[in-house]
């Protein structure tokens, strides 16, 4: 299972990298979104995917899934959401002010 997940995560990283190298600002932000999905899945996978009960003591199970990576991922999700929403509004404002989302045109104008 971990090998399959590692390949899936690799595909997510690949796609994220490709999007981040493109010209459109929106695509770059989509790329960062996919990248954070990849990172979260990587955290979960590296914690081990041994089957066990959900980490709730009420289950009375003999073994539980590792709770620590889940707590870490939860923190990471919230932070990446905060950052992504900030970026999106930044992108929205730059559309409004600059009138473009093409990264090639968003350069300093020292030569003008």
């Amino acid at each position, binding site marked *: 299972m*971990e090998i399959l997940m590692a390949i899936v995560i690799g595909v997510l990283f690949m796609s994220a*990298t490709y999007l981040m190298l493109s010209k459109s600002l929106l695509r770059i*932000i989509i790329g960062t979104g996919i990248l954070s999905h990849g990172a979260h899945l990587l955290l*979960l996978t590296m914690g081990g995917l041994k089957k066990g009960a959900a980490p*709730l003591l009420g289950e009375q199970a003999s073994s539980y899934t590792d*709770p620590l990576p889940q707590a870490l991922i939860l923190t990471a999700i*919230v*932070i990446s959401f*905060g950052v992504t929403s*900030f970026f999106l509004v930044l992108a929205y404002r730059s559309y409004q002010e600059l009138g473009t989302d093409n990264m090639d045109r968003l350069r300093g104008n020292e030569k003008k």
Partner: protein
Amino acid sequence: MSLLHLAILSPFLLALLVPIVYKYVRQIHTGWFVLFLPVLLFSYFFQFISETMGGHSVTKSISWIPSLGIDFTVKIDGLGLLFALLITGIGSLVVLYSIFYLAKDKEQLNTFYVYLLLFMGAMLGVVLSDNLIVLYTFWELTSFSSFLLIGYWYHKERSRYGAQKSMLITVLGGLSMLGGFVLLYLMTGTFRISEIINNAGDIFTSPLFIPAMLCILLGAFTKSAQFPFHIWLPDAMEAPTPVSAYLHSATMVKAGIYLVARLSPVFAPHSGLWLWLVAGVGLVTLLWGSFSAVKQTDLKGILAFSTVSQLGLIMSLLGVGAAALYYDHLDENIFIVATTAAVFHLINHATFKGSLFMVVGIVDHETGTRDIRKLGGLMHMMPITFTIAAIGTFSMAGLPPFNGFLSKEMFFTGMVRVLEMDIFNMQTWGFLFPMLAWIASIFTFIYSMILFFKTFTGKYKPAQLEKKPHEAPIGMLIPPVILASLVIIFGFFADSLLSDTLIAPAMASILPSLLNDSSKFFVEISYWHGFNIELMMTIGVIAVGTIAYLTFPKWKNIYKLFPEKRSINRLYDGSLELIQRSSNNFTNSYMNGFIRTYLVYIFIFFIGMLSITLSVKNALKITIDNAAPIGVYEAILAVIIAICAIAILFAKSRLTSIILLGSIGYTVALYFVLFRAPDLALTQLVIETVSVALFLLCFYHLPKINRKEERMGFRFTNALISVGVGVVITLIALSAHSNKLFDSISQYYIENTYEKAAGKNMVNVILVDFRGFDTMFEILVLGIAALGIFGMIKLRLTRRKDG
């Protein structure tokens, strides 16, 4: 703090007071308030002569950074005292001269005297420090104050150019010298110069010995304007003439000489390289400086190249004299005469070159030009200046009865005795030394004559002069008169005045291993040696020099063999420009302003470093021992997520890619469900929904012009890089999973969630109880993001009008 330390630091203290005096006492020239200090210091240092004559030295120390072995240790021995007397003595005369040279209502006198005092203190520190690091500190201070003084008339472009050039070259040498000092410290374990000299016998086998020597010599050669680092000195002539006289003839340029003399006992006894380098570079400098001086048309240009050549002379004498250290007894050691000549010529050069600079300053001041093509026939208008110039130039040319003659004779003696040297391959190449020295002396004779006769004799050309020339004010004449009298006095009474008081103690510092407790150097300077080879050489110099001077217009053309285009100056300018241009081009070539390019660098670096590390460390290992079995649902989700992720790349419209991103997010949430993470699934669902809504908001607000929805262009490099990133991540994930070293710490959480924290949801208990700090700052992150978004939308401080 002893009186000695106070003496070194007093110029700095006075420099603090000068601006105050300048501001409140405007009717009196500020220089008068400065003048007392060098005079006082001179008389203070003068009383040490009795001490050093007896072969003693005075050492005083205060601690500065004792943990690093850096103490402000001051040591007065023969060599240090000689330099200290030169610095304070000529310093007094130069301050006196500058009072009449600089007008009090036209010049910024406060800055001038502050810089000059800084220099004087720094120079005293250089020659009296017994600690290498303290010496280096003062050394750099001389570079900085010299930079400030050269650029004194900072509105002139040539001044700024000269100041920058001297700064770059001397600081280059200074830093290299610091490296050499550190190497010395590594070998000997001390920064104290006297201790290093005592332990010199132990270090010459060290592999650091030669690098330390080369580094220190580079420092000495750049400071003392040796070939090919002499190029800064002629450009430093843009400084006011008192500065040129003081720094660039008598004191600062001799700091390198001082360093070579001071460290000779460390390097010279065991290495032929030291002798060859110091003497060889000195001779080349001597020849090239005197050769170049002949073609100059500016008086200060002639004097600058003349200084270069005379410094080369002293340097070559120090090199040859160092051969004496090869032998360990004083009797029949014929090479010490070169060291005597070096010390003697050092004194002589300071006297006649100082007076010549002052003469040139007077000529410039009274006629408005320094160009020898415009000058001539000033003899009758400026009789006193004329006399001083005659004494100075004839002494420089090495004519009797002036002191230059004596040191020139001794110089020849030293060089001729090289022929008898049977060490360091001298028997094969030694004949070059006296030959080159003789040729250089002919050129020295020629430029001295040009300097003197073209300025004061010949036709008077009033039309070309800006002012009507007349004799200088008396105050301006006193310092050069004193120096010129010293030239004559030293010429007649050198033996009785100088040899025991200054020269012998200085030699004792340069060649300490030759002396035991009671012995002393016996210095004899006399006019008449009988008919020997040195006398013949001097007669030859005068004869050939006179003929060459008279026929100068005929052979002038040989200077065309050395065109300006291929000079070292051009090399310096060209390389400076090349460095600036190429670094500019280099920076522009990779900093092109496209964020994509920078990301490409980052990703390539990432792929490169990680894959190299993986392969070098043999970390790549894939096992399936502790992997969980693959379930059907997970496999289906994996296919879905992979299809979505790849489909985004080929999505034609932005709307499609946003929806695909959403579906990836929801699939991840499903994964969280399958992998038994209910809290994550909940959060992921909610957040993905909000994120997609935000994406759609941005999509909706795209400006119309950019709505042209086109497929992303395919780029091979992008594809290659992204596949590389994906593969590297996969490999690292697999290797990390296969190399699991120890078990998780989660058993503790599972056991204690209820017992210690009274909760049953382990994830939530970890978030708010076991690891609550993470959560607190995560809340802070969200708060900052919310405030930031609010600020971005609401604050419109600079709304563009043209936008």
